[in-house]
């Protein structure tokens, strides 16, 4: 009867079903997910892995905002608008605590960058069938990026954990702080690896080459040398500072005198013209965090200019180059008025310094054609035009964040060389471009170096160098407090390590 057949059928299907799944492995087929099982297999994977390591740089938390908040607010250069939030003001007033959100943010991004660089350094050597030169270049760039992140970390926080291997298991998480000399050893070693593995070719925007490694190495040696000789906190390990100055000079010389892919730009506004520095065969921009206004999200494009630009209630137009009477007018939009220039910085320029007249905007033209003056104590204040994009698409801008600039290395060269002919020549080249006369002759070593540091304050203003220059010369108190009347409660030389790290890393102590 039909009924029996149904029963037999049901029993059979039950049996089959039961057997079927008791044997099944229940393994998971990930959908839309790349992971270590499927990646680092081809040369394209290697490039992609490196691109990922670079992509951390223009993130909001890093060079598109976070880095400038942390390096510029504590100095006499910038303060923040009144509703910028607690974390900004803690930095501005140098009273940072371990819960400072901005510091937590940058710390996190620095280590994310290190994790990505570690993945490149560890995995790319194992990619099969890859031309050795390509492999070396990529690994070298990985070393360069890791060194850059650690150099930022050691200058910001001092002793931090060293992570040199990709993290694949949670057991690797607890890590002790390493000492400052241990961290510098890694940085120098990485940069020397980078120098050896990379070529001098500059094929891509926003990627490092040999000159970038040499330039960064010069900065690293100079930071150590000057910190050691000025007895800055944490740098007693630096024995003979002169040897390190010599190393700084050697590497700065390689950049200044021994290569042609980067060079001095004669006209100040041209240094900051995206269409120039992105397209010229030779530019000042040795290494940038690169962005483009066609990107999809912030980090691919930059909103950094909005941080510097005021919001006077209208779209601003300014002359491209105030020193050139035939200069065209450019429309630079309006910003968020987040950073506000401090009078201390603005008033300290020599009045004929082009870096003030040409690179700081004190009057803007509104859409009605009226010129509006910006007062240094107003709500909408004079602002730097280093970060502008006249071709901006709403808030999407192509403004790269300059990480190493030729003029920076020229001044490193001068400072390392001291009051020699070459030293004078380097610093005076910068001064001449700024419309200033040469430095007085016959300065002593310390007077000369002090003068170069001062030159850096103007030449490299708003580029995230000033805080480190003050720290490495042990002059935080002398300049910020005694000269400019700021107060320092905490974080003068090293910022506190973020609480989240202290809480989650059992081997970490404040």
């Amino acid at each position: 009867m039909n009924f029996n057949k149904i029963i037999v059928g049901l029993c059979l299907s039950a049996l089959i079903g039961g057997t079927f799944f008791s044997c099944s492995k229940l393994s998971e087929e990930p959908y839309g997910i790349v992971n270590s099982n499927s990646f680092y297999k081809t040369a394209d994977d290697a490039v992609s892995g490196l691109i990922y390591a670079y992509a951390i740089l223009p993130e909001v938390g890093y060079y598109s905002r976070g880095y400038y908040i942390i390096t510029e607010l504590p100095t006499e250069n910038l303060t923040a608008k009144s509703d910028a939030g607690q974390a900004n003001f803690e930095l501005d007033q140098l009273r940072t605590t371990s819960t400072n959100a901005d510091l937590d943010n940058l710390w996190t991004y620095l280590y994310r960058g290190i994790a990505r660089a570690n993945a490149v350094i560890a995995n790319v050597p194992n990619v099969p069938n890859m031309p050795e030169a390509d492999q070396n270049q990529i690994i070298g760039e990985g070393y360069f990026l890791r060194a850059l992140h650690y150099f930022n970390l050691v200058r910001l926080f001092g002793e931090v954990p060293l992570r040199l291997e990709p993290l694949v298991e949670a057991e690797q998480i607890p890590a002790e702080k390493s000492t400052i000399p241990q961290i510098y050893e890694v940085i120098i070693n990485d940069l020397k690896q980078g120098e050896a593995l990379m070529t001098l070719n500059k094929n891509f925007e926003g990627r490092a080459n040999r000159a970038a490694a040499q330039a960064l190495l010069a900065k690293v040696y100079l930071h150590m040398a000057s910190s050691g000789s000025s007895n800055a906190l944490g740098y007693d390990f630096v024995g003979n500072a002169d040897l390190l100055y010599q190393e700084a000079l050697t590497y700065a010389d390689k950049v200044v005198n021994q290569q042609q892919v980067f060079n001095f730009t004669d006209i100040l506004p041209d240094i900051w013209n995206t269409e120039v520095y992105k397209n010229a065969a030779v530019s000042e921009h040795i290494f940038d965090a690169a962005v483009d206004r066609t990107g999809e999200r912030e980090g691919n494009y930059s909103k950094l200019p909005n941080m510097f630009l005021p919001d006077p209630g209208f779209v601003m137009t300014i002359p491209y180059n105030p020193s050139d009477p035939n200069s065209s007018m450019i429309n630079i939009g309006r910003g968020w008025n987040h950073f506000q220039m401090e009078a201390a910085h603005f008033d300290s320029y020599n009045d004929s310094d082009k870096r003030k007249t040409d690179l700081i905007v004190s009057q803007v033209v509104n859409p009605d054609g009226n010129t509006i003056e910006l007062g240094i104590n107003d709500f909408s204040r004079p602002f730097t035009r280093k970060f502008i994009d006249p071709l901006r698409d709403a808030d999407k801008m192509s403004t790269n964040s300059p990480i190493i600039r030729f003029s920076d290395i020229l001044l490193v060269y001068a400072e390392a060389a001291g009051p020699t002919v070459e030293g004078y020549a380097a610093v005076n080249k910068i001064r001449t471009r700024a419309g200033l006369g040469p430095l007085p002759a016959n300065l002593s070593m310390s007077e000369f170096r002090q003068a170069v540091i001062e030159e850096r304050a103007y030449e490299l203003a708003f580029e995230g160098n000033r805080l480190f220059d003050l720290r490495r010369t042990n002059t935080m108190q002398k300049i910020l407090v005694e000269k400019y009347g700021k107060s320092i409660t905490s974080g003068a030389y090293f910022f506190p390590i973020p609480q989240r790290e202290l809480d989650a890393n059992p081997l970490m102590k404040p």
Partner: protein
Amino acid sequence: MRRSVLKTCAAFCGMLFTIQMAVGQSRQVSGVVRDSEGRPLAGVTVKAGGQTATTDQAGTYRITVEGATAALTFTSVGLQPLDVAVNNREEINAVLTGTAVDLDDVVVVGYGGVKKSDLTGSVATLKGSDLNRTPASSVDQLLQGKIPGVQVAISSGQPGAGATVRIRGNSSLSGSNAPLVVVDGFPWGDAGDLKQINPDDIESIEVLKDASSAAIYGSRGANGVIMVTTKKARAGTPRITLNTLHTLSSLSVKPDLWRDGIEEAVYANEAARNGGTPLSQLPYLGEVRSGVYFPSIAELRGLDPNKPQWSTNTDWVNLVYRNPFSQNYTLGIDGGSDNTKYSMSGNYYKEEGLAIKNAYDKYTGRLNLDQKVNHAISAGTNIILTYTNNTGQNLSAGRSRIFPVYDENGNYFRTSAMDFGNPIAIANEVLNKSKTIDVLGTLFFNVKFTEWLQFRTQLSTKFGNAVGDVYEPASVTFRGYENTGYGATNNFNNNELVNENYLTLDKTFHDIHRLNVVGGFSLQNSKTRTSNLMGMNFVNDNLQNENLNSAKTKVISNGLSASTLHSWFGRANYALLDKYLVTVTGRADGSTKFGDNNKWAFFPSAAIAWKLNEESFMSDISFFSELKMRASYGLTGNQGISPYQTLDRFGSERYYVGAQNGFMTGFGPGLAGANNEQGLTIVGGLGNKSLKWETTTSYDIGLDIGLMDQRFTVTLDYYNKHTKDLLRTRTIAPSSGFDQQWVNDGEISNRGFELGFNAHIIQQDDLFWSVGGNFALNRNKVIAMGESDRVVTGSLIEMVRQNINHFIIGQPMYAFYGYRANGIIQSLEDGIEAGLTGAEALPGEIKYMDISGVNGEPDGTIDPTYDRMVIGDPTPNFIYSFNTSLSYKRIDLSAQFYGVYGNDIFDLQKMTPSRQIQRWTPDNPSNLYPRANNTRGYKASDFFVEDGSFLRLQNLTVGYNFRPGLVRGISTIRVYASGNNLATFTKFNRGFDPEVGIDGINWGNYPRPRAYSFGLTVGF
């Protein structure tokens, strides 16, 4: 009125006539007995003097009445007895009401049912008719206060918002804590948004609370199981029922906002000045700021000699909120022959939100068919279709009264180019719509091999589709501005396929051994696909998101997550002499979601019960209709993790490498997840091959008492749940390059006590009064969390720059962690002495306490490491509810109260305008509220912690049942008025409802309505 007087007179005359005529005659009386919903009741005992009769399947009876008999008595176990005067009638129809559960009722427990009296585990049951009649877009909301041990938190009054449901506390740190919902034997997933079921279609809801009953759902049972049973087809002549509910709502609390623009401006100026704004830059000085004129205080007051008094005084509450009207209609029909039965219904539900232009529409259709193929095989299907449409959003009424809605040109008024807070602009111009379609179908075959052995196979599918439409114009929201118009279409598709096959054996041996065994296997496949299409930068706003391709920038994302669950399950119930009951249950689950090292999990449980009332030594004590002791022990699991979480997953990002190559795509370690509130992207993606389920070991001891034929019932339970291998996203040191990783570590315990009682206090001819209530107490404690003593949870709160909710060893979950505050600083010395510096030490600021320091004693500074502590607990000490119902003749009245006691709320909205007015000033040295200061960085402190206890008059219903047969063709008519959320007694911030979410934070959610409903139930 006049009519009823006439009727009363007629009845009175009739009675006199009856008395006169009642001499020794006997005659036949017949009629139909129905329940309160108009359904015929079978097996009702009808007594008339010495005669007894019983109703048949159609509810009809026929009885011989002696002449002297004045009344018929209708009784049925579990229902309220009814006496009806005969009055010389030949047809007497009766309606029996009652809520008590019959001990012979079958309770659904998963893969079958057991008689209520045979339950060994802790299972609560609720009839569909006991649900409150009030607008509820999801059924979960209606469970609040109904079942002891089931906590329902409704933190938002927005139409379509779900609820948070917890059974016996929280037992998972970051896996799901929601119970499993099983509808008609089909496991649907987490409770909380049960929108697909029309409350009018619910026959019963069973809640499996302990391990013994929930272990049959194995790795999904640890949070308890809610079994929903929809109304089944019944044979008989077609019955049609119509339910309607019309509701008018209003705000249940008065928003605490500025009532006066002058005070608002004074406060704003003072806050800016104290916050460090130069005097010349204060907001209200009668100057133009970013193109907008801000009046001065004098001008607002009308004291400026050169200007007229400022006339704008916008009442945003009136503009933003309304008294919404909601409707609900259900039409149902059921009937059929003994071989083919059907039940179907259609529902339309429309709920308007309190905020303007915010509404929720829902259409539900249901079909249930049952066919007897032959004496052994039956087959059937159950199909549910649901369509919902949700439009609009929450709006804020907390905008300055000083400025108008529109400017002089009729455009939306904005206080600056960056002002995106005009609620009228948002309501009118922002598109925010979501539509869902759900199709649920089950097909089953049931084969009865013999009287005692049957096999059931069931194939169920669930298809869910949701489409969200978003458009934000450039001038209305920040996101719109940032992107020059932001449009999106978000698609979500979910497919579930479940096949369950099981044998049921039910046999009694030698009259004393009763055995019921269920065993089988099931296969479940889940697949969720999503795609999100976004467009940014539009030419204009005309097309909204209708042509995303016209956007200058387009972003697409898509994803799929799939999982498979294979299970074996079995349960054996054994009863000896009908006194001693034993249940053994087990389930083995294998899931793709578990890590490679742990693919299969097994969850056994056992329970015993002893029916003392069946013992011979109790036979003299006849008033115990039930006296049962229960004990159970077992394991259940929680697999609330997402697919692929055991694998390492790479992230992807693009980087610009120059004009020639443009953007290149990179892959590498670290998978970016959502941003936290500070814009920091949280990075996960670190794999864990050992990841597995959480295991909850629990025992339960219970006592069921029923007195006087279940007229008084009490259920008591004590339980202890211990959960280990907790799934959680461990916050890992950011120096690892990751922010979190899924791990199994940690333990939580929940202990508690539950009490439910019901008493039919008065059961007289026309008057019934019953009282019921429940009480649940749960003690939750985090016992271990791997290497951590304290872990943050929830989200970082910008205002205090830390997370409020923490998991802390030895504390209840979600405990508040922060600083202690001790009033307000009265002088600078006071502030410095307290260990504060800078602006924080100034008079009028909050005085935080220096609790400890590096050396274990106060060190004169306030720092996060040493001066923070547990400052509150959002978990109630206990939850209680009580209800009463009273009926007299055809009128009935019921009320339900619901309360929570002893929970803390972190009140982020504490500084409401009515408190800002009481702020500290040199002239008003308040110790309660700090001075005005717009740059204050608040610390998370107990300044914000308030008692959240409340007692709510949840529901009050008055109903009237018209006499059956009043209108030809209509068997029952019931009209009722129901008020919901009528009164709340609390000490909490008066501007807000004290019922917040499980996290205990008052975020200032969508306000909760007070609802007044009018309902009609008609049975044909």
